[in-house]
């Protein structure tokens, strides 16, 4: 007889186990098979003649072969199917009433082309499918098998999750009542002078025995999860909060039971029972956990709100017919209609119609954005005015909204360096407390007054109960979670927790000019006319000359002409002279538009002053006909309307604000004056920007760089904290540690304000948690005994411990009400 261990997969219930056993024992020579559902493993006792292949085949035929024994899956990676294009689809299954259905459904899913693995969880009626098959194909397969299915992402079932949380909350409250129901009367009895001592032979001994059994019942029901948790952790060489509670309450109960059963074995003064402590502690800690569940629900409110933005249904146009379908079923390439007041269902590109879309929920920008054919729209944004028809370009997890949620969730899980000490302490916390409890007990035994046994028990129990690893462990993550969520609400995506901490201690901020301080779009800001000339005439001529040009300045002139509804004239003999300007003929007349030196060289007298334009940071373009100058057009990249205010806010917070640009010094200075920055770095080539940032760092400064995230990548990478600004919903910019979806520099100031507030909150939490533990543990051990003449009650310790973690979570929740402020809008 040989014993084999084989891996299985997808066996989730006893029904599956029975099926596997049946399949295996049907093989001649297999005498016994045992399925371990948790390990997904089957142990088989078989004769030597039975081959491994036979057994694997039996398991495969029963439908529970692991992926690795599946010949298709074991094939070397080839083609897109086996690379990262594999995605998980989670289906919510309806109509499955028995474990047998599970196999049918899994088989139906596995036989769908492209499916690598399919597992159904009968407990929550979901199926997890890995492979390249689309959700629609999978749903069809399940439906053909006679069941119902719909796609569910693990994120979007917020209400279900809430219901589970609610159920957990109610259970904790029930446990609390169980614990306190027994503990409070017992404690009241003790406080009101009732006898808590066991007197051998008296009736009270039997009463205490009954109470002891009742306490055991409370420990086994309301306290069950602490004991199972502690037990499992122990076998894994781990110790956690459950360990401390189980040890504390268990020790108190055990001691009391010894007192009840063998009072004679203990000195008379030590025959005190502590059943009330066990019951009370269990009750109080359940109460603390219930409060924590409530408080925690709020910390993830920001992500919930983002998730709630997603539309539930979409109006899809297929074969000329419009129908409302669940948003999960929309596929890339589908044409969709969105009516006024409706949400955009998936990311797409407008094909018909014009409308205004409120994107504030994603970008934080309050003004609605005009959308027309060719523009991109994002899932979760709100269509305000017209009807649009758009084509889906990204669905499901690929939409910008989903990516934002994913990014926020990821950042919420990361920790700034400030939390590392707490992490290191947490990792060794529980065993250390256990050691302190033993030392404390020994100290009382060796040096304490009588009754020494009682003192040993109380001090050790109280030390175990009062120590709160939770407060310490929660201090940083809770604040990060709320802070990162808060930032997301303002259109600020923080990529890592570390950026939070660094942002809070910056002293220098370098702002790229184009697109950061300025609009990034040159515009005609003024037109100076020679005597007898009119602005519109000059603009019409200039625009007609430039109509064939691709230069950014030409675009500015053409846009301005268009906005003034000026008709253009046909130009002939167009010529663009690099670094000089353009020339062309209109109605037989030759015109030139270009820089001063070129026109002067052509013999045209420049009798006008362009200083008023350069003072505004504009580039002057001189317009002349064959003989005379007609006027000067000032083209400038206007600064954003709120840049000045935002820069003032940054400076007020003590930062040195530096503008960096490739522009010539004079026009850079002009923009710098308008923006109100402290310093200017002009004529810097894009590739040298990183060097400039480095130079500032070498001066000992902590530098933030703000840019558009594409052209400035090296400088962003060099900076201590980098901001990509105005990315809209294109959030995949990896080079920046913080992405601002809105285009306003206020976002930078807001991000820094939120970071500072979050780090302050973390510090408060860490301070509180460290102080609580480092004061609480010695007091519990009895250092105050010489002063007070008594030991801290384990019940008080239980109350303090429950409150400490609630306090941390509540303090973190205060951040939700933080307003970065300062916006003029």
């Amino acid at each position, binding site marked *: 007889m040989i014993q084999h261990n084989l891996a299985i997969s997808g066996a989730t219930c006893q029904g599956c186990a029975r099926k596997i056993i049946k399949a295996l024992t049907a093989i001649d020579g297999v005498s016994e098979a045992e399925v371990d559902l*948790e390990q*997904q493993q089957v142990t088989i006792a078989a004769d030597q003649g039975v081959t491994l292949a036979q057994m694997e085949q039996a398991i495969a035929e029963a439908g529970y072969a692991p992926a*690795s024994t599946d010949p298709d899956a074991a094939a070397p990676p080839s083609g897109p199917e086996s690379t*990262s294009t594999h995605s*998980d689809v*989670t289906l919510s299954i309806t109509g499955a009433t028995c474990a047998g259905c599970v196999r049918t459904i899994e088989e139906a899913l596995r036989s769908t082309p492209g499916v690598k*693995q399919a597992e159904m*969880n009968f*407990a*929550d009626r*979901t199926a*997890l499918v*890995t492979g390249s098959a689309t959700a629609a194909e999978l749903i069809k397969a399940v439906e053909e098998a006679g069941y119902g299915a719909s796609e569910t992402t*693990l*994120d979007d*079932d917020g209400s279900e*999750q809430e219901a*589970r949380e609610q*159920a*957990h909350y109610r*259970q904790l409250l029930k446990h609390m009542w169980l614990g306190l129901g027994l503990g409070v009367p017992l404690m009241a009895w003790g406080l009101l002078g009732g006898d808590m001592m066991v007197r051998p032979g008296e009736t009270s001994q039997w009463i205490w025995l009954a109470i002891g059994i009742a306490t055991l019942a409370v420990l086994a029901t309301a306290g069950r*999860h602490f004991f*199972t*948790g*502690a037990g*499992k*952790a122990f076998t*894994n*060489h*781990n110790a*956690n909060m*459950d360990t401390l509670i189980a040890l504390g309450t268990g020790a108190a109960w055990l001691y009391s039971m010894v007192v009840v059963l063998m009072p004679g074995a203990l000195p008379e003064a030590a025959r005190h029972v502590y059943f009330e402590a066990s019951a009370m502690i269990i009750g109080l800690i359940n109460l603390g*956990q219930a409060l*924590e*569940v409530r408080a*925690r629900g709020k910390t*993830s409110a920001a992500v919930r709100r983002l998730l709630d933005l997603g539309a539930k249904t979409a109006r899809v146009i297929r074969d000329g017919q419009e129908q409302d379908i669940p948003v999960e079923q929309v596929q890339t390439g589908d044409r969709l209609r969105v009516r006024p007041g409706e949400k955009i269902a998936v990311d797409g590109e407008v094909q018909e119609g014009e409308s205004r879309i409120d994107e504030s929920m994603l970008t934080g920008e309050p003004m609605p954005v005009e959308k027309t054919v060719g523009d991109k729209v994002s899932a979760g944004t709100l269509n305000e005015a017209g009807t649009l028809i758009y084509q889906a370009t990204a669905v499901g997890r690929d939409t910008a909204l989903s990516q934002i949620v994913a990014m926020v*969730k*990821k950042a*919420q*899980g*990361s920790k700034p360096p400030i939390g590392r000490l707490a*992490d290191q302490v*947490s990792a*060794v916390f*529980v*065993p250390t407390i256990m*050691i302190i409890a*033993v*030392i404390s*007990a*020994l100290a009382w*035994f*060796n040096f304490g007054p009588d009754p020494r046994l009682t003192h040993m028990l109380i001090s050790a129990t109280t030390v175990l109960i009062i120590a709160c*690893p*939770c407060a310490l*462990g*929660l201090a940083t*993550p809770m604040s990060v979670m709320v802070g990162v969520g808060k930032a997301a609400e303002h259109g600020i995506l923080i990529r*890592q927790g570390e950026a939070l901490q660094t942002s809070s201690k910056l002293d220098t901020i370098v702002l790229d000019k184009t697109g950061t301080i300025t609009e990034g779009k040159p515009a005609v800001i003024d037109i100076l006319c020679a005597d007898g000339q009119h602005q519109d005439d000059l603009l019409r001529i200039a625009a007609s000359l430039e109509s064939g040009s691709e230069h950014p300045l030409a675009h500015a002139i053409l846009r301005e002409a268009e906005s003034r509804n000026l008709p253009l004239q046909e130009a002939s003999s167009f010529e663009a002279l690099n670094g000089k300007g353009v020339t062309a003929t209109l109605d037989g007349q030759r015109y030139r538009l270009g820089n001063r030196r070129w026109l002067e060289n052509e013999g045209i007298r420049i009798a006008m002053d362009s200083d008023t334009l350069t003072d505004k940071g504009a580039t002057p373009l001189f317009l002349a006909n064959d003989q005379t100058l007609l006027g000067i057009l000032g083209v400038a990249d206007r600064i954003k309307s709120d840049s000045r205010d935002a820069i003032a806010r940054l400076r007020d917070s003590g930062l040195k604000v530096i503008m960096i640009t490739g522009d010539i010094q004079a026009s850079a200075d002009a923009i710098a004056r308008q923006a109100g920055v402290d310093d200017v770095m002009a004529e810097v080539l894009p590739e040298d920007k990183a060097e400039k940032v480095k130079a500032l760092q070498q001066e000992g400064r902590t530098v933030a760089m703000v840019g558009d995230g594409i052209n400035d990548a090296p400088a962003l990478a060099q900076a201590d904290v980098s901001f990509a600004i105005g990315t809209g919903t294109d959030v995949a910019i990896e080079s920046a540690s913080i992405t601002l979806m809105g285009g306003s520099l206020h976002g930078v100031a807001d991000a820094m304000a939120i970071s500072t507030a979050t780090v302050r909150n973390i510090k408060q939490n860490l301070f509180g948690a460290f102080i609580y533990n480092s004061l609480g543990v010695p007091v519990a051990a009895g250092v105050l005994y010489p002063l007070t003449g008594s030991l801290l009650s384990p019940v008080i310790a239980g109350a303090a411990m429950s409150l400490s973690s609630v306090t941390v979570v509540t303090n973190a929740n205060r951040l939700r009400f933080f307003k970065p402020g300062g916006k003029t809008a």
Partner: protein
Amino acid sequence: MSILINLAGLILIALIIWWFWMSRPGGRKPAAITSETTIIVDDGVYDPALIHARTGQPLTLHFERRDPSPCAEQVIFHGLDVSEFLDNGKVTTVTLKNPPKGEYRFTCQMQMYQGRLIVD
């Protein structure tokens, strides 16, 4: 008697140090190398708590959270910049595309749940 009690206390301390710090779970028998596995999150422990993977291979971990307590709501892979929220009663899949060689801890936020990932 008093010597015995003191001795018992010292032995207890030594046992705590040995059990929780010196001897590590799975330290003696290495876990089987896996590229995909399900980890049950329940009662304060990840089961299995030791994951052994190969470099250059994507690792897919299905976390099945059965513990409703909020402690279990997040898993963080230290040193890999990966974290994921685990929905209660659901399976959440964490895919590490190409984990670099090394030993990483994965824990809950408060580090009460503890697991180890060995990539070699």
